[in-house]
């Protein structure tokens, strides 16, 4: 009888590059940068790594396919390397692969590394690929990610009868709070606080999302080394960070083809959350989760996720936002590192970057101004695809 992942895997070390327009760095340089940090943090030697999982999404403009690029860059000594790809959950999938290998008792020490080099495309924005298949390319509208997620906002405001001005203000608060957090983070790309007024006054990108409701494109890499709790304790002095839950939920086709999805929430997030809470033994997420890094590609995504994760009641996230519930000094700080808003979204790396923040908060390593009080359980959330058709990952780590 399967018993889930809770407390079977420990995070031995993590690393994360500075995210941004890394013109001087190739993907290989970012891989090396993240790897050097994670190795030092774990306190082990390269040859002790027995297997690796390598996450990257848009390999066409990046490193190429297969797990080979990771091995040849780091000169990993003929070990198994698996490439993972699952839209924006790619990084978390790499972590998941490494964790399951350890939990299964097949390997003792595994590496997960995610990288994305997006700034070689020659133009701003994600490169056009048939990411959703040939048929969708033929019949789907000429869409961009902001436009696809902006639809969540029009549906949500209509469903809950929210005055667009109040909605805009709530979305502005979400972004403002992330920017305030990112301003304190040396690894973030954007480190400038922005006032709510400046966000509300900004032009539209895809109605009703404006300039500050959308995250940017950047380069980056992040990595984790995992092992069993016993090995971790024998190597490290303090109480290790343990994996409590690893959930992935993929759309069934029901949202986009059948008639029940209301267009105003992310069904996969709701179900991934439920799976993760059950795996971690969490009965009341609003009371038990200490902090979160959610997929704030767009501010509206973060808003619906508050509800989809059963933290805010349906249709009432705006009240929590207004109360500062998710601010750094609030009850459940969300995006304490600044989130995708300040880091940008190198797809393969983001899931691991989120775990990096939760991990360091749990170990209370950050300066006072950035610390979350009494961190016990940290949740990460990734969402890749479009609101109707996507993959969602929810991971929970804690001590």
């Amino acid at each position, binding site marked *: 009888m399967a018993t889930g992942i809770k407390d079977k895997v420990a995070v031995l070390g993590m690393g994360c590059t500075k995210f941004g327009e890394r013109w001087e760095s190739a993907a290989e340089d970012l891989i090396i940068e993240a790897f050097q940090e994670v190795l030092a943090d774990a306190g082990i030697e390269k040859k002790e790594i027995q297997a690796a999982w390598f996450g990257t999404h848009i390999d066409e403009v990046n490193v190429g396919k297969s797990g080979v690029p990771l091995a040849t860059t780091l000169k990993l000594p003929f070990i198994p390397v698996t490439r993972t790809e699952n839209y924006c959950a790619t990084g978390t999938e790499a972590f998941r692969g490494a964790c399951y290998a350890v939990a299964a008792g097949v390997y003792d020490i595994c590496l997960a590394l995610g990288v994305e080099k997006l700034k070689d495309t020659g133009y701003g924005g994600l490169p056009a690929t048939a990411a959703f298949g040939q048929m969708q390319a033929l019949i789907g*509208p000429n869409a961009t990610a*902001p436009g696809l997620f902006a639809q969540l906002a029009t549906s949500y405001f209509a469903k809950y009868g929210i005055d667009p001005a109040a909605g805009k203000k709530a979305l502005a608060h979400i972004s403002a709070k992330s920017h305030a957090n990112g301003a304190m983070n040396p690894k973030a790309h954007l480190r400038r606080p922005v006032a709510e007024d400046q966000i509300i006054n900004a032009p539209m990108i895809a109605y009703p999302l404006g300039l500050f409701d959308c995250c940017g494109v950047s380069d980056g890499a992040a990595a984790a080394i995992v092992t069993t709790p016993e090995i971790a304790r024998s190597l490290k002095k303090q109480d290790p960070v343990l994996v409590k839950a690893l959930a992935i939920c993929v759309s069934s086709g029901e949202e986009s083809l059948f*008639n029940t999805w209301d267009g105003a929430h992310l069904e996969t997030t709701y179900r991934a959350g439920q799976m993760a809470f059950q795996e971690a033994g969490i009965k009341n997420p609003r009371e038990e989760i200490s902090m979160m890094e959610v997929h704030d590609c767009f501010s509206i995504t973060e808003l619906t996720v508050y509800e989809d994760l059963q933290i805010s009641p349906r249709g009432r996230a705006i009240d929590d936002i207004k109360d500062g519930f998710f601010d750094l000094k609030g009850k459940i700080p969300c995006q304490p590192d600044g989130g995708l808003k300040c880091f940008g979204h190198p797809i393969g790396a983001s899931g691991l970057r989120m775990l990096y923040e939760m991990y360091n908060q749990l170990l209370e390593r950050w300066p006072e101004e950035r610390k979350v009080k009494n961190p016990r359980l940290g949740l990460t959330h990734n969402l890749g695809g479009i609101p109707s058709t996507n993959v969602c990952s929810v991971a929970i780590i804690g001590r």
Partner: protein
Amino acid sequence: MPGIVSFGAYVPRYRLKRMTIFQAMGWINPTTIMLAQGEKAVANSDEDSLTMATAACIDCLDGFDRTMIDGLFFASTTMPYLERQNAGIIAGALNLRDDVRSADFSGALKSGTSALLSALEGVGSKNANQILVGAADCRLGKMGSPQEMIFGDGGAAFLVGNQEVIAEFKGSYSLTCDFVDHYRGSKTIFDRQWEDRWIRDLGFDEFIPKAINGLLKQCNLKLIDFSRVIFQCSYDSERKNLVKRLKLDPEKIQDPMHGSIGETGTAHSPLMLVRALEEAKPGDKLLVVSFGSGCDALYFEVTDQISKKKKGMGVQGYLANRADLPSYPKYAVFRGMLPVDIGLRGEADFLTRWSLIWRKRKAVLGLVGSRCKKCGAPQYPPQRVCANPACGAVDETEDYPFAGKKGRILSYTGDMLAASYDPPELYGYVEFDGGGRFMCNFTDCTLEDLKVGAPVSFSFRKKYYDEKRDIQGYFWKAVPRKEVA
């Protein structure tokens, strides 16, 4: 007796005032001020002759069983493909049977009436029961030209058959003459014409009366017997002249709609005929004459059945559905006459895979999805595995056409970043009445027209154009409607 069983029309929503054209281009050709009255209908950036003919056919077929159609003829001098049958694409969009005849009629502005004649002869010979004829044109004159002032865009359609005929076909007379008042070679896009006076004096002045008199002699009738005389002539002054010469009652002359639509080329005499039919009474005799490389003159007699004809949009309905196109440069960009920068995103290469298009032709061209026979849930695109979580049946489906359904907006956005010829790009999820949903573009509207819950219907439009390979792709878009039927 063979005749017209139904008719339809399509006039695009955008209207360009001729004064707007003159203000932009009059500096190079001041004489065009003489033509700068009224407005003309111009196709949207996602429309062409093929889509307009399809829209006219849809209007014509409202209430009719499409499985009964045995043939489709499409007439235009501005077809998107030189080879890949354009009528075949329309047949796919209309979801006609596979075993139908089809043909493209082109090369002259009389092709519309020629297609109609061939269709009438086809059903008359009992070789077919019903044939559908669509005619449309989207012609271009050079910037600042008189043609640019005169040309308008539009389409018309007729369903022709032997039963329940609303206008009986009584006879025809044709002339074929290589009178080159204007022409276009196979490699050019702009119309070129000869001297106006020569065209009026040796063209219209000679051929229209010759065609009319030929028909009258053949049918043993006099002009006075006709309730409406419909003839194509791009010169309003010449029209007046012909009325005088032929001693026609001015009340009986069909308005060419130059001030509201413009000269729609191959579609024009058909469009005027549709307009006449919209007002016609039983017993009315209609004479229609086209002009272009000769003439076709046709004579119809309206029957009692005309009162049973379902009122569609027609010329009247579409004329009333208008929006100003206040910018001449926008028109020029829509027509591909000005090289415009739509950004690197717009340059993304899209490879058309013909084997995929063939496999998915019903879904893509016809907007045909599937309906699960087990639980009844309609789905688009068609699914072999039912999407109803309570069902999940495999391969228990039947074809389910969505194109004629109405729908409601579930979500929407106006995207300023997507590469677009008319930003912002409007799209969102639409739920079909009866079930099923998909994400599509909205067209013929502004962002302000979009609201969650608003009703829409569907229109066949240009979807993408691959400039490198000269491939025009098509698909369906949602158009907000004021009411849902």
